[in-house]
């Protein structure tokens, strides 16, 4: 089944790379020459080919241009055109704004990330246009385009409101619960759900359980705690490193549609695998697989924990935690990769990305922490039931499939904050 899936994935990949050059030919060249900049209100629209948000914003901007003769729209396709992407990054630096996603619209000194509807984002853009018409404002993008020559518009500082606009409405009115702010609510909930689903597999904690069984045989209490804690911290750190590296890679390459589609396929594949597990594997309990690999890890763990020199044992545990978790991560990287992709879709400050990643890892490690602390305090090993793993396969499968479909067809619904 997995092999079959890998073949399908490979075929799709090849297909995408064959199709991609055809799209590449449609690349837009920068449509604006500096001397052509209008003296009215310039609206700069950064978009991506195939981005549904952008497709919704485009007709609105065209109408805006008709409604206000002073308005001139300049559009920049950023996914296929690297020059336009560079310009977007420069604009982001100047505005001190996160430009990892499109559509990104700039009016004077104001910028708008994402697009929700004409009534929300559209209204804000129109307000900004009216404001520039009324009060005048620096044309930030225009300034960049004319290479810091004379400002295109009046030199007075802009008095317009510079609040960051987002694609998600500020408040949602939910019956019974009342007003909820989805910007503050959705991403933490999704983080907890995905982290929980990722960490819920109690069969995956076999290394920790074996380590605890060895630690419980030790007389030195301090050594027990330090070695066990070192293993858990090192495991969490590997996860953090992986997610941070992946996040930075995604932010570096920008909002490229192929990366998003690829991750969507990972999500669909992972969803399919989980659903298959739900229907096929009806017994609870842990599958007996990877016997030789497990034995090798057990032997190493035994040797390391029994080393007389404490520092050598500590170093060994940390190295082993790195090695084991790296292998595990490669096998089950689906959810952290999907989660990181959702993070990059959301417009967040860099530190916020890391806070969410830490929250994800904490939830992911929660069952390990419970098992470890219970064992260290009671000096008895306890297990977490595998009874609910079937339910988690079902929920995880459905959720991953939905995320996969959303990433392809409606990524705007995954843009938080």
């Amino acid at each position, binding site marked *: 089944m997995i092999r079959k899936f890998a073949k399908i994935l490979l075929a799709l990949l090849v297909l995408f790379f064959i199709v991609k050059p055809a799209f590449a030919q449609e690349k837009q060249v920068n449509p604006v020459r500096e001397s052509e900049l209008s003296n009215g209100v310039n609206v700069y629209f950064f978009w991506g080919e195939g981005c549904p948000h952008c497709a919704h914003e485009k007709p609105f901007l065209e109408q805006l241009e008709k409604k206000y003769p002073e308005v001139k729209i300049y559009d920049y396709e950023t996914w296929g055109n690297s020059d336009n992407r560079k310009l977007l990054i420069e604009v982001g630096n100047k505005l001190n704004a996160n430009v990892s996603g499109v559509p990104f619209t700039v009016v004077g000194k104001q910028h708008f990330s994402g697009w929700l509807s004409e009534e929300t984002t559209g209204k804000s853009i129109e307000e900004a246009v009216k404001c520039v018409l009324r009060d005048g404002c620096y044309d930030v993008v225009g300034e960049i385009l004319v290479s810091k020559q004379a400002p295109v518009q009046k030199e007075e500082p802009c008095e317009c409101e510079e609040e960051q606009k987002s694609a998600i409405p500020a408040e949602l009115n939910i019956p019974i619960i009342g007003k909820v702010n989805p910007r503050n609510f959705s991403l933490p909930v999704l983080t907890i759900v995905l982290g929980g689903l990722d960490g819920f597999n*109690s*069969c995956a*904690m*076999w*290394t920790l*359980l*074996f380590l605890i*069984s060895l630690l419980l045989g030790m007389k030195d209490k301090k050594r027990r705690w330090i070695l066990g804690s070192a293993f858990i911290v090192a495991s969490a750190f590997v996860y953090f490193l992986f997610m941070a590296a992946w996040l930075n890679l995604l932010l570096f390459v920008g909002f490229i549609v192929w990366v998003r589609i690829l991750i969507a396929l990972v999500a669909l594949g992972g969803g399919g695998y989980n659903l298959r597990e739900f229907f096929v594997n009806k*017994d*609870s*309990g*842990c*599958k*007996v697989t990877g016997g030789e690999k*497990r*034995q090798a890890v*057990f032997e190493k763990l035994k040797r390391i924990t029994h080393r007389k020199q404490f520092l050598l044992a500590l170093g060994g545990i940390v190295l082993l935690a790195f090695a084991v978790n790296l292998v595990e991560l490669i096998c089950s990287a689906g959810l952290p990769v999907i989660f990181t992709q959702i993070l990059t879709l959301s417009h967040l400050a860099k530190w916020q990305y890391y806070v969410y990643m830490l929250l994800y890892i904490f939830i992911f490690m929660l069952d390990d922490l419970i*098992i470890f602390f219970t064992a260290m305090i009671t000096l008895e*090993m*306890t*297990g*977490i*039931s*595998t*009874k609910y793993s079937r339910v988690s396969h079902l929920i995880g499968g459905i959720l991953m499939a939905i995320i996969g479909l959303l990433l392809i067809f409606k990524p705007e619904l995954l843009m938080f904050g």
Partner: protein
Amino acid sequence: MKVLKFGAVWCSGCLVMKPRWQEIEKEHPWLKTEYFDYDKDKEMIAKYKIDKNLPAFVFLDKDGKEFLRLHGEPSKDELVKTILENKEK
């Protein structure tokens, strides 16, 4: 009747089942049970072909012939019911 319990130290479900069996054994002292570790008791693992899920519980009759096998985490009630129904076997 005798119950062979197969488990492993790294298997979370086996740890969950351990106290459950302890209770049953205490309440039914006539019941014969024996525990085998997946990594240590290779002979028994091979003999009973434990190659699917852990924990596994193999029920043997008076002649040592297997008549039932359970996997995963059966409830205490389910186990007691099975044991009492097959007490005379």
